[in-house]
């Protein structure tokens, strides 16, 4: 599915060379949920940007879904991003003057879907994150957690094979973070492969697999045995904890 062998990435600024990734090796199978942790500056974001085709790499071999990425030009990589990858960023990155509907619409426009198809997908994905009723609101009218859910809806509307999240809960308080995590787990259960960078070891522990990055390399891989689809128990002080995570989110 995702196959990185000996990826090397060097940032060159003026006279300084930063080896952000060196001999980075990773294989991620379909349906996996990988949490990436590691010290600051270890190369997690760099890895995720390369995995998401946002950046190029200097050496090594990267295959995504059977496609050799080093052969792809900028336009082809844009298309692959559009069709196969969904992104969630720490800072949500919603477009401030577009309402929720139009924000979720952005990747679908580049996909070339017709109007009905787009409408259906936007409504479905906003429904899934519990914000269908607020479709016409602007991002600024939402809380941080809600904005991140819009970003998730935007990432999901195109039904990507991969979801890449760079500290998706970094700007959220712990209960918000947990509800976003629950949502990601549900999305993973539905078959989407997820790679998430996080500093939060508790959240990381909920993923199927943890990788630890140090100094531009994968230094440790652990398989989580406590991975559970039922996230509601984690919403500890929620009295209606029997609700599904999505229902819990929508309140």
């Amino acid at each position, binding site marked *: 599915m995702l196959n990185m062998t000996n990826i090397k990435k060097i940032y060159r600024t003026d006279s300084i060379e930063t080896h952000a990734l060196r001999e980075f090796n990773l294989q991620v199978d379909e349906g996996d949920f990988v949490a990436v942790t590691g010290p600051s500056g270890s190369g997690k*974001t760099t890895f995720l*940007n390369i995995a*998401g085709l*946002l*950046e190029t790499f200097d050496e090594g071999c990267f295959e995504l879904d059977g496609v050799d990425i080093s052969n792809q030009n*900028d*336009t082809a990589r*844009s*298309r692959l*991003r*559009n*069709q196969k990858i969904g*992104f969630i*960023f*720490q*800072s949500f*990155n919603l*477009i*401030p*003057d*577009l309402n929720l509907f139009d924000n979720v619409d*952005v*990747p679908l*426009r*580049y*996909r070339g879907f017709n109007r009905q198809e787009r409408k259906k997908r936007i409504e479905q994905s906003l429904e899934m994150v519990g914000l269908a009723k607020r479709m016409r609101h602007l991002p600024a009218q939402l809380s941080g957690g809600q904005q991140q859910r819009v970003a998730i809806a*935007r990432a999901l509307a195109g039904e990507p094979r991969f979801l890449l999240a*760079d500290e998706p809960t970094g700007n959220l308080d712990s209960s918000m973070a947990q509800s976003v995590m629950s949502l990601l787990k549900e999305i993973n259960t539905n078959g989407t492969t997820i790679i998430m960078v996080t500093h939060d070891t508790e959240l990381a522990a909920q993923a199927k697999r943890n990788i630890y990055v140090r100094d531009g390399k994968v230094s440790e891989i652990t398989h989580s045995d406590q991975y559970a689809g039922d996230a509601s128990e984690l919403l500890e002080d929620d009295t209606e904890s029997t609700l599904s995570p999505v229902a819990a989110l929508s309140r």
Partner: protein
Amino acid sequence: MFNYYLKLAFKSFRRNPILTGLMIAAIALGIGASMTTITVNYLMSADPIPSKSGQLFHVQVDSWDPNNGFNDEPNTPPNQLTWTEATNLMAAQQAFRQTAMAKSGAIIEPQNSDINPFEASIRLTFNDFFPMFNVPFKYGNGWDKKADDDRQMVVVLSKNTNDKVFAGQNSVGNNIVIDGKSFRVIGVLDTWQPLPKFYDVNNGAFDEPEELFMPFYLKQELELPNWGNTNCWKTPEGEGFAAFLQSECINFQMWVELPTEKDKQDYLTFLNNYVNDQKALGRFPRPMNNHLLNVMQWMDDQEVVAEDAQIMMWLSFMFLLVCLLNTIGLQLAKFSAKSAEIGLRRAVGATKGDLFIQYTIETAAVGIAGGILGLALALLGLVGIRQLYGDVLNDLANLDATMIGLALTLSLLASICAGLYPTWRACNIAPASQLKSQ
């Protein structure tokens, strides 16, 4: 997708109303200034008689001072003719149509005593004048050859004169008193305002046509005064009107209609022979230098498009350039405020091409808005220009469809050009760099 981009463009205007407003204003100012001066130049250089401007030729022969060329130019024949040449060439009748002309003036005394006598300009000309120059008639016709030969006291009125003296009625057959003599009205012109007034640019290329038209020989018969430019290189021998007519002074224009190239060659040969004959009589001391210039060549030769109008046009283009440079700066500012959005669009799958189209549509929309505002400014500018170039531009110094099309195309091109570099830069923003934090 076009509609989507247009919608995004309007959202972007709403987000940055001040930047957008400044860009529109900058383009509008540049376009307004350019369009004002382009229009003036366009009107000044328009073909006043497109259907036959290539077949009408202005006649020049070099009858000037042996020691000193006309206007101190060694190779330029004088721009007008003497009475001798005007009458001799007319008598020869060597062209398909021909008319010698002079400008004069006289007092009209309307019969209706409510209207005060007034001074009117006169075009002294031949019967061919009207068909040659496609002059439109409202009532009646021009005179015939016999009227020319017999020096009949007939007159054609301009529309304005007829409106003034006869209250716009069909006055053909009526009499009108000019300089105390009674003339018979045989025709009334419809509105006619060739711009430039090509048949006599020497006496004001943007003046109104004359108020009265009458047979040329009445000049001699009635001793009508010389209006318009008169140049002499030799003082007339003797006093009085007859002496002036016999002198080497130039005050007359001549046009011939020569439908084919062969006609033109034949006429030149005729002119050369004529000049040789005159040389034999002791006139034409300068080398032979006869010119037949068609309407547009003659406009060019006479520099009908005023030099200051041209300079103004180039200055306004410089101004437009400055406005565009400003626009480039504003665009760069606008795009740098948008870099997060651009990064995001790239991340979710927009290609550079997609973004390029999106932002080019946005700049084009600014250009169109600037163009429309610029047209409004150009209209204001033309009101100002009228003060400068006189009344005749009144009716025509308006923007016609060509000019409106040109203004919009110009502003569209200008804004897209100004947008190219900022847009190119925006499209090349690395997607990852903008997404880390806001």
